[in-house]
């Protein structure tokens, strides 16, 4: 059910401050697209416009178009709540519902959607936890609180929660930045498996990670602090890291700034 994202002329504001300016790009289905760039370049803001989480922030608004296959996410009659049910998100820090059990965490999205049968629920939870490579670690304690797991396990629990509702797209906002290297590796392996089924967009500060997991990489930059972030270029990851077409990209990748 993976879908193609087609962004054209997208500008996002926080109040009167323009955070990103006129971004257009295409994200291919069943692939991983990485967003890299220095802090404040708007890559997280851009990610959040892809499931309309940006407008949850007071003053947040957007101009432009985001097409998910042939549906405009910012169309007049589109309900942002419905958008978020088809475009899932995983955050920087693991955020399982602290008072809920592991099972309830994974089932939360299904219960929101309302249409499920009880035996079906258990099946989906198992499938999602297996999909997130967490099943073997938690199958004996599904009714224990999700907050009792380690950081890396919590993050995989959040991924399981996100994929349980079978979204078309999975957005990941620096999903490994709060994790140790072993847990990071587990998540990266998971991402390569998940791209068989979902369109994945990942924001990362770790350029090696972008090189390891992504098929295509987008480099964002800003002219100066306080200026809006812009898309510099998007290309095959291999090309971005070996022979980018813009000098700024090469400077950033080779560590000359950022």
């Amino acid at each position, binding site marked *: 059910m993976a879908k193609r994202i087609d962004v054209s002329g997208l500008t996002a504001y926080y109040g009167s401050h323009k955070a990103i300016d006129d971004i257009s790009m295409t994200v291919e289905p069943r692939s991983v697209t990485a967003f890299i760039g220095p802090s404040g370049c708007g890559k997280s803001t851009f990610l959040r416009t892809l499931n309309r989480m940006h407008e949850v922030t007071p003053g947040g608004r957007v101009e432009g178009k985001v097409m998910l296959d042939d549906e405009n996410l910012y169309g007049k009659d589109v309900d942002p*709540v419905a958008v978020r*049910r088809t475009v899932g*998100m995983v955050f920087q820090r693991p955020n399982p519902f*602290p008072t809920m059990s592991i099972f309830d965490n994974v089932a*939360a999205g299904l219960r*929101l959607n309302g249409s499920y049968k009880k035996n079906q629920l258990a099946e989906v939870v198992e499938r999602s936890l297996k999909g997130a490579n967490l099943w073997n670690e938690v199958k004996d304690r599904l009714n224990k609180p999700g907050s009792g797991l380690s950081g890396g396990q919590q993050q995989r629990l959040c991924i399981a929660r*996100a994929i349980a*509702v079978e979204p078309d797209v999975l957005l990941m906002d620096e999903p490994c930045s709060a994790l140790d290297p072993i847990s990071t590796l587990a998540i990266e392996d998971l991402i390569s498996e998940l791209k068989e089924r979902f369109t994945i967009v990942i924001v990362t500060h770790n350029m090696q990670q972008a090189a390891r997991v992504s098929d295509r990489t987008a480099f964002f930059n800003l002219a100066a602090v306080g200026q809006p972030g812009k898309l510099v270029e998007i290309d095959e990851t291999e090309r971005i890291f070996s022979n980018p077409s813009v000098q700024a990209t090469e400077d950033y990748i080779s560590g000359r700034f950022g």
Partner: protein
Amino acid sequence: MAITTDNAPAPPVAGKPGATSTGRAGDKIFLGLSQGSGILLLVIMASIAVFLTYRASLALAENEGNFLTTFDWNPAGDPPVFGIAVLLFGTIVSSIIAMVIAVPIAVGIALFISHYAPRRLAAPLAYVVDLLAAVPSIIYGIWGALFLVPYLEGLNSWLDEFLGWTYIFEKTEVGVARSLFTVGILLAIMILPIVTSVSREVFLQVPRMNEEAALALGATRWEVIRLSVLPFGRSGVISASMLGLGRALGETMAVATVLSPSFVISLHLLNPGGGTFAQNIAAKFDEANELGRDALIASGLVLFVLTLLVNGAARLIIARRKEYSGANA
């Protein structure tokens, strides 16, 4: 405990203040003042407890009735007979009515202020609710007696007619609405601000990422509240309610002004009559003889213990809350 690390020699802030006094005059004076106030507080608490217990024991020695089960208050009689059954019942019932009415409304207002109202409206609204707490209780009492009592007649007969079958809303005695039910409504209004403002603070503390977790799953605003805000705030709401309960139990002037006291226990809440600890003390203290005052003090001791227990329970819940609110810290 986090200790700031400067390059300069560590100032003696950590650990027991007494052990690290530098001998400077300012330190000594401040140490003395703060220690003194702490000790003073304990002395005041202890002397209240001792005073209440001593005077109560004098009265209890003279009491010819059972202090816990007697439905009468006649310490001046011969033999002297008095008991707290009616007062305990009235205090607890009126407070429960107040809680049942106030807590849902307070949680609603708190959620509205913290999660629904636009910012321009939220701050003034919060201020108005806090202002309710600044109204003196005698004003509530006068308002209750002159406004609430007559205007509740209509509600009372409606409840009697349609919910009379529940027994508690059956009105079997004629008379104005100087009942425990009216007292409960008045107490509900009086505890609304404290419950609201504590709940609001807790709801505002819900970590952003907990709410975003629900939002990203496609939760509506109400679902975000149900999935993230209420579970996080639950223990805070409980302790806020306990604080409100503590106030309702001890409220004196408002209750004394509204209630028409009588020494009966009745679950017909709309019937006039009943009594509470604080109201009974306020009504009888001036005319009471020596033994009468001691008897009232004995009832005051029970209220003191009751309030202490409620506050202790609130503290326990607040302390327990730390365990799971920091789940993702």
